[in-house]
């Protein structure tokens, strides 16, 4: 669900002002929006996390990209392996959407040589499966409007600063 910028005078003003501005000025405008959005987006995400795993995988690489025509909020965007080898950009799904828990029994051999059985609850580290997600998806859904508002006000604010000669 994307808002058509033509439907909102505010968004129209923002987009047209970005188009109108000199490239140097435009840079400062998008930079202003980026820092505001990133801060807000990360804090929204952090409020929804429960474990360090969620913070590391989803929130730590959450960013805001602002172009002169739109902006995009990303999460789990890091391509660098975490200490255990997990690449957030590839394997965020279980963390965000949860995973099905299941018991698995398998046979191991003790140090003395006696075989015995072990039962583990697999995927215990993830939340229960829910297709609506837990962190980024609800954050985007609940705060999308606010993010757009922040985007508009950040640009507007910068515009006034510029007009005051800052």
């Amino acid at each position, binding site marked *: 669900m*994307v*808002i*058509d*910028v*033509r439907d909102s*005078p*505010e*968004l*129209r*003003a*923002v*987009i*047209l*002002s970005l*188009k*109108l*501005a*000199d490239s140097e*000025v435009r840079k400062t405008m998008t930079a202003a929006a980026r820092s*505001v959005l990133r801060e*807000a987006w990360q804090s929204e995400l952090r409020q929804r996390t429960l474990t360090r795993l969620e913070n590391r995988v*989803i929130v730590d690489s959450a960013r805001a990209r602002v172009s*002169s*025509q*739109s*902006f*995009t*909020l*990303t*999460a*789990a*965007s*890091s391509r660098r392996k975490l200490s255990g080898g997990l*690449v957030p*950009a*590839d394997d*965020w*799904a279980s963390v*965000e959407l949860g995973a099905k828990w299941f018991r698995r029994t398998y046979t191991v051999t003790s140090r003395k040589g006696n075989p015995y059985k072990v039962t583990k609850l697999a995927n215990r580290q993830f939340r229960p499966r829910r297709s609506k997600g837990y962190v*980024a*998806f609800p954050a985007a859904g609940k705060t*999308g409007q*606010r993010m*757009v*508002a*922040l*985007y*508009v*006000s*950040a640009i*507007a*604010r910068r*515009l*006034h*600063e*510029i*007009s*005051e*000669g*800052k």
Partner: protein
Amino acid sequence: MGKPIEFTFIGNARKLIKETGDIKEGFEDVKDSLKDLGKEGDNTGDDIAKGLDQGADKAGRSIDDLEDEFREMERKGKAAADDTGDAIGKKIKAGTEKAEEGLDEFKSEANSTAKESAASFDGSAESIVDSFQEIAANAFAGFGPAGAAAGLALALGLGAAITAGQAAADAINEAKERSGELAQEIVEAGGDIAQVDIASKLREWGVAIKDNREFWELWQDSAYSNMDKAAEKAEATGTDFKTMFRALSGYDAGATDRVLESVGEQIGDLEEKIRDARAAGNVFAGIQDEDGMALDSLRGIRRELTGVKDERGDAAKAAELLQEATEEETAAAEANAAAEQAASDATAARNSAISALQSGLDAAVGAYGEFTNAESGATDPGKYIAAMQARIDATSGFAGNVSRLADEFGLSQAETQAILDQGVDFGPMLQSIMDSGLAPEFVAQIQRAVGGGQELLDGTPLGATVDVTAEVTPAESALSILSTKPRDSKVKAKAETDAADAQLKSTADKPRTARITAVADTFLASFTLGLLTSVPRTARVTAVASTGDADAALDRLASRRRTTTIVARVVDREGKAVN
């Protein structure tokens, strides 16, 4: 390769830009909505305002301030525009002078940046009313920092017409716009209206559509061009088409005057005729009859022609202003460039002087090799440090002498540099020159040597062998040899413990602590050329080497030679570590 989580909330910006023909106009239409945004945040206190940490509040306020400022500017601009062209010129001038009075403030970086930005918009933003950018940018200067900011705002499309020049080019007023264009052309033609390509202007104007036929205008057969208009008016006034066309176009002042005169006469005739008819008893004469309608039509034409004539006058005035403003702008830019050049020369000269002096000092620091006994390999830190001190003193004395000489005899930069280039080793000679009172002769020789190469060449007959030994280093010289250039050095002491080994061997059962004390110059730690003239500082450097471990090891391996490296922790007077 998986994809990260991504959300995009807004779209179709490309379509919006495509559908908005004139970006600036489109922005003007909706820009107020950004102001409303700030206000809403204030009133409802919703998440937006909270999230912004009163940012929206501030934004809302600043827009209000901005609006007030625009209004004020507009008022000033209008007031100026209401006066005659001369008065506008005076106001621009007075404003500039006023700005010059507060030069200190005016020079502040923020303002000049804003002004630069405003000026740099001239080229890129088509939004600025065409030919008056420069007048506008210049006039802003007269209004100080606020004006410069307003200029930027205008460049962004936020503002309305603000200054006198801007008012003259008011885009809403078609006539003014046209006079602006004409003014631009007059300026481009070097002020000579005869050189403006009137023919093509006339053609353009002739086919310009005056009145589009709208669907409800059933009575109008087609679009109505200036040519049609001229034909109609020519018929109404009995003037020939060509004259009327030129008169209405505003490009032929003579034609305008001629037609105005003839129309005036016709109006006079008609008025007289109607007066006579009324005197004869026809009280309704001139009311809705043929004569009356003709009179109305003629009066309309006269109004129009008068307008054309005024417009023409405006163009001439505007051209004058534009010319003036352009000249001022150019002069300012040139002055700026010269100042920048001077500043960069000064910096280069200072750097050159510093490096000349510093190289001597660096050589002293690097000369530690000379203080090592070639046979025994023993080092003599005391002498090394003392030598450096001597070098610093010499450099300080040399620099002082050079600058005294430069002051006394008003040496040029090249001449000062020529002396500095001789290096610190020249110091004693310079000292004795000055002591012996030979300084004037020395300076005279230096001056001859520095500028002498060309002179000697000039005075030499062709074909002769030229043997010139002249110092013609073109280097720039010192404006100020004082500079603060902190430098850091690493001090690492290494002690040979061979001798200690031998002693330790003889008294191996006694644990002992050796204390090594050295004095080092702090210039190694923090040294500024500015300190050259003041007393050099010293700091005590204490190194403590515990040899207890060495004892034990020696007991076990008494036969092996060993080297102990002692890393000294060097502290300055304040007790801060130096590394």
